[in-house]
C-alpha cells in the first residue's frame, strides 16, 4: 500500500480541492513547491546578481566554522563581502515591499484627488469625520469649507508626500512623541516615500554603499516610509472614500461560492475598482442579465487583501487566501476572477484554461498573457465595473460541468479599525483605550500580538498561522491581525465572539465576553497594518504602559511570510519598537553579522528587533516571553492584591 502523503493544508476545503486538482491533472503551487526546491544560497541572501560580473554566490561553509581566511575569501567579484551582499538583498526586499504598499497609496491618493475635484463619477466622500481628522492632522483649514474643498488640499498634500525631497513625512506626527524623537536622533525619519526607496536602489547598485550597518539603516528609513507613510496614506484615504470599517458579519472559505449563481472573485489588493464592482453587481440590470443566462443571482467574493477591504466595509464573503487562489478556479464554478495588483499567481491563467473561468486583469501595471484585460478607468469606473460583471455573467453558460464546491465556510466578525476599537471600549462619550490598558495592567490580558502576513507553499497551508494564534490567545494574548493571517483565522473559526470561551485563556475570554469581541481582531488588509501602528500609539498615549511602543507588552509575527511586503512590514514594526518573529525561512542566514545586527543590535537602536523561529508554538512562546519581559520592566508582572482601605488606613495615609 502506498504511503499516505501528509496533507498540504490544515483546511478541509483546501485539501478537497487539492485532491480534485490532482485528479484532473491541474498543476498548482502545492505541486510546484514539491518539484521545485528553493535555492539554498539565494534563500540565505548569499547570492548577488546586481551586475554582469555575477551572479556571485558566497554561501557559508556547510557543517563547520568558517576560518578568518575563508571568510576573507567569501566575496563577490567586485569584492563585496557576504555581509554587504546579505544586507543589499535584504533592503532590496524592503524596497520592493515598500514600493508595493506605497504605489497602492499613490493610486488611492490620485483617485482621492480626482473625486475631490469631481472628476471621478460614482465615488464620493463617505466618511466626513475621517476627512476632518486628516485635515486636523495635516494643518488643513476646515472652517466653513465644503468637504470637497478640504479633500482637494488633503489629496494634494498626500500626493506630495511621495515625491517630497526634504524634511520628514507629515504622517510621522501620529507616532508617539518619543518614537518621533528617536527616529530623528537615528537619522531615519523618511524625507519622502519614493526618495527612500530610490536611495535603496542606488545604494545597492554595484560599488556604492558597502557597509552593512549603513545599508540596513536605509532599509529602516524606507520601511518607516512604508508603514507610517505610504500604507498609512492608503488606509486613511480609503477610509474617507469608502468608509472607516465598523464591525460587520461575513463568511470565509471556498464554501462561499454558489453553484447556481454567477461567481465573481475579486482578487488582489486595491479596493478602488472592487468597490464599484460591488455596486455594479447589485444593479437590477445585471441581475436580470444573470437570470437570462439561467443563473439565480450574482455572487461576489474576495481573495487576499482585496477580500479584506470589501469584507471590512461591505461584508462581502472571503473565498480564501493566497494559496487558495488556484483552487477557487479548480471548483469549476468561478465565472470570472478579477485581479488588480500584488500576490496574483501567473498560473491562475493556466489553471483557468482547464476550466471556463475568465481571468480579468484590470491594472495597466499588472497584465497576464492570455487573460482578458479590462482596464480600470477611475474617470469612468462604473463603466469598467459593469463590463467586468457582464463578462462574468456571459461566461456562466460556459461552465464545463466538473463543479465541486467544498461545503466549508465559517462566520466571522471583521471591521476592527482603530476608531472602532476605541469606540467599542468606551462608547460615544468616553471612547478610550483605557479598558484595554487597564486589563493589560491587571493581567487579564497578558499583552497584544499582531500576527499578519502571507501563505507560503513551503509550509503546510495555514498551519503556522493557526497554531501560533491559538497558542497566543490560550495564553491571554489578544491577537490583532491583517492580510492572509486574518483569512486563515476566519477559516478556522477564531473570529467570532464565541471563539473566546473556546480557545482563549480565562482572563482574555472574560474581557472578550464583556466587550463582545472575538479574541482575534480583524484589522484589514496589508496596508492596514498602519492601523496596528495607530492602535499601539493609542495604547502608549493613554498611559500606564510606558512612553513608547517599545515599552508596550506587544509582539509581532508573520509565521508564513513569503512576500517582500512582509519584510518591509516587519522592518517598520521593528523600527517602531516591536519584537517581530518570522517563520519559514530567514533571508540573511548567509551572514552571521547581518543576522546578529537584525536580531540583537536593532534593539539597542530602536527598542525592537527581528527574530526567526519556524516552529509556530516556539515562536509564540518567544513572543510571550518578550511580552512578559516588558510586563516586568513596567512593574506589572505580578498580580497585585486589591486592598480596600478602611477609615483607619485612610487616616494613616493622610497623616
Amino acid at each position, binding site marked *: 500500500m502506498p504511503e499516505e502523503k501528509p496533507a498540504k493544508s490544515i483546511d478541509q476545503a483546501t485539501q478537497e480541492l487539492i485532491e480534485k486538482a490532482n485528479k484532473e491533472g491541474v498543476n498548482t503551487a502545492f505541486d510546484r513547491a514539491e518539484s521545485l526546491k528553493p535555492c539554498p544560497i539565494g534563500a540565505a541572501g548569499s547570492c548577488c546578481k546586481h551586475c554582469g560580473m555575477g551572479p556571485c554566490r558566497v554561501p557559508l561553509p556547510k557543517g563547520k566554522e568558517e576560518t578568518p581566511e575563508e571568510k576573507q575569501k567569501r566575496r563577490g567579484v567586485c569584492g563585496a563581502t557576504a555581509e554587504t551582499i546579505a544586507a543589499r538583498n535584504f533592503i532590496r526586499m524592503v524596497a520592493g515591499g515598500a514600493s508595493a504598499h506605497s504605489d497602492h497609496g499613490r493610486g488611492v491618493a490620485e483617485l482621492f484627488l480626482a473625486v475631490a475635484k469631481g472628476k471621478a463619477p460614482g465615488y464620493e466622500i463617505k466618511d466626513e*469625520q475621517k476627512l476632518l481628522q486628516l485635515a486636523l492632522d495635516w494643518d488643513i483649514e476646515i472652517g466653513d469649507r465644503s468637504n470637497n474643498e478640504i479633500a482637494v488640499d488633503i489629496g494634494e498634500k498626500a500626493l506630495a508626500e511621495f515625491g517630497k525631497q526634504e524634511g520628514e513625512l507629515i504622517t510621522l506626527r501620529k507616532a508617539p512623541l518619543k518614537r518621533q524623537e528617536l527616529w530623528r536622533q537615528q537619522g531615519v525619519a523618511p524625507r519622502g516615500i519614493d526618495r527612500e526607496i530610490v536611495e535603496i536602489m542606488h545604494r545597492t547598485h554595484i560599488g556604492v554603499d558597502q557597509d552593512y550597518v549603513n545599508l540596513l539603516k536605509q532599509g529602516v528609513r524606507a520601511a518607516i516610509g512604508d508603514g507610517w507613510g505610504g500604507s498609512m496614506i492608503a488606509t486613511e484615504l480609503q477610509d474617507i472614500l469608502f468608509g472607516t470599517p465598523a464591525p460587520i458579519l461575513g463568511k470565509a472559505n471556498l464554501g462561499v461560492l454558489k453553484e447556481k449563481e454567477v461567481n465573481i472573485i475579486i482578487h488582489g489588493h486595491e479596493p478602488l475598482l472592487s468597490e464599484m464592482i460591488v455596486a455594479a453587481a447589485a444593479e437590477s440590470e445585471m441581475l436580470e442579465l444573470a437570470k437570462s443566462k439561467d443563473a439565480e443571482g450574482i455572487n461576489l467574493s474576495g481573495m487576499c487583501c482585496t477580500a479584506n477591504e470589501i469584507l471590512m466595509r461591505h461584508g462581502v464573503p472571503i473565498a480564501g487566501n493566497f494559496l487558495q487562489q488556484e483552487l477557487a478556479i479548480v471548483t469549476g464554478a468561478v465565472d470570472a476572477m478579477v485581479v488588480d495588483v500584488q500576490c496574483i499567481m501567473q498560473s491562475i491563467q493556466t489553471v483557468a484554461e482547464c476550466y471556463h473561468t475568465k481571468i480579468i486583469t484590470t491594472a495597466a501595471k499588472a497584465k497576464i498573457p492570455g487573460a482578458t484585460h479590462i482596464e480600470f478607468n477611475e474617470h469612468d469606473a462604473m463603466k469598467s465595473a459593469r463590463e467586468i460583471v457582464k463578462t462574468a455573467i456571459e461566461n456562466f453558460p460556459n461552465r464545463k460541468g466538473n463543479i465541486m464546491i467544498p461545503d466549508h465556510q465559517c462566520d466571522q466578525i471583521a471591521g476592527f479599525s482603530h476608531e472602532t476599537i476605541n469606540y467599542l471600549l468606551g462608547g460615544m462619550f468616553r471612547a478610550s483605550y483605557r479598558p484595554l490598558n487597564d486589563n493589560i495592567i491587571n493581567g487579564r490580558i497578558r499583552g497584544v500580538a499582531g500576527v499578519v502576513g502571507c501563505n507560503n507553499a513551503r509550509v503546510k497551508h495555514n498551519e503556522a498561522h493557526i497554531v501560533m494564534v491559538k497558542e497566543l490567545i490560550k495564553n491571554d494574548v489578544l491577537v490583532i491581525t491583517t492580510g492572509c493571517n486574518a483569512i486563515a483565522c476566519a477559516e478556522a473559526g477564531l473570529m467570532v465572539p464565541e471563539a473566546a470561551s473556546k480557545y482563549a485563556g480565562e482572563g482574555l475570554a472574560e474581557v472578550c465576553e464583556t466587550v463582545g469581541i472575538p479574541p482575534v481582531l480583524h484589522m484589514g488588509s496589508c496596508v492596514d497594518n498602519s492601523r496596528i501602528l495607530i492602535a499601539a500609539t*493609542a495604547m502608549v498615549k493613554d498611559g500606564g504602559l510606558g512612553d513608547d511602543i517599545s515599552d508596550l507588552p506587544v509582539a509581532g509575527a508573520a509565521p508564513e511570510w513569503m512576500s517582500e511586503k512582509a519584510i518591509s512590514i516587519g522592518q517598520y514594526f521593528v523600527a517602531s519598537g516591536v519584537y517581530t518573529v518570522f517563520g519559514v525561512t530567514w533571508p540573511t542566514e548567509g551572514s552571521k553579522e547581518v543576522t546578529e545586527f537584525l536580531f540583537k543590535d536593532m534593539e539597542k537602536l530602536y527598542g525592537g528587533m527581528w527574530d526567526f523561529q519556524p516552529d509556530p508554538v516556539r515562536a509564540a512562546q518567544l513572543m510571550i516571553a518578550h511580552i512578559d519581559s516588558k510586563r516586568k520592566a513596567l512593574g506589572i508582572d505580578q498580580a497585585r492584591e486589591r486592598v480596600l482601605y478602611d477609615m483607619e488606613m485612610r487616616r494613616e495615609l493622610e497623616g
Partner: protein
Amino acid sequence: MVYKTVKKEAPGRGEVDILAETYEAGIPAGEEVGRWRQKMESRDEKLKYLKSGERYWYSDDWFGSEKRKNPA
C-alpha cells in the same frame, strides 16, 4: 440629538412623558448594526467627537503618558 421619551404613571399626575434611555439598546439589530460613525450627523458633532474620543491627538485636555509633569 433627538431624545426618546416613554410614558409612565406619575403619582397624582397620571400618565406623563419622561426621558427614555439615552444609551444604545443592548441588542442592536438590522442592517445598520455596528455602523456607529453614522450616528454623528453635523460637522460640529464630528469635530467634538474627535476632540474627546480621539483626544490623544486632537485635544490638550487628557491624561496619559505624554501629558505628565515630565512628559516623554
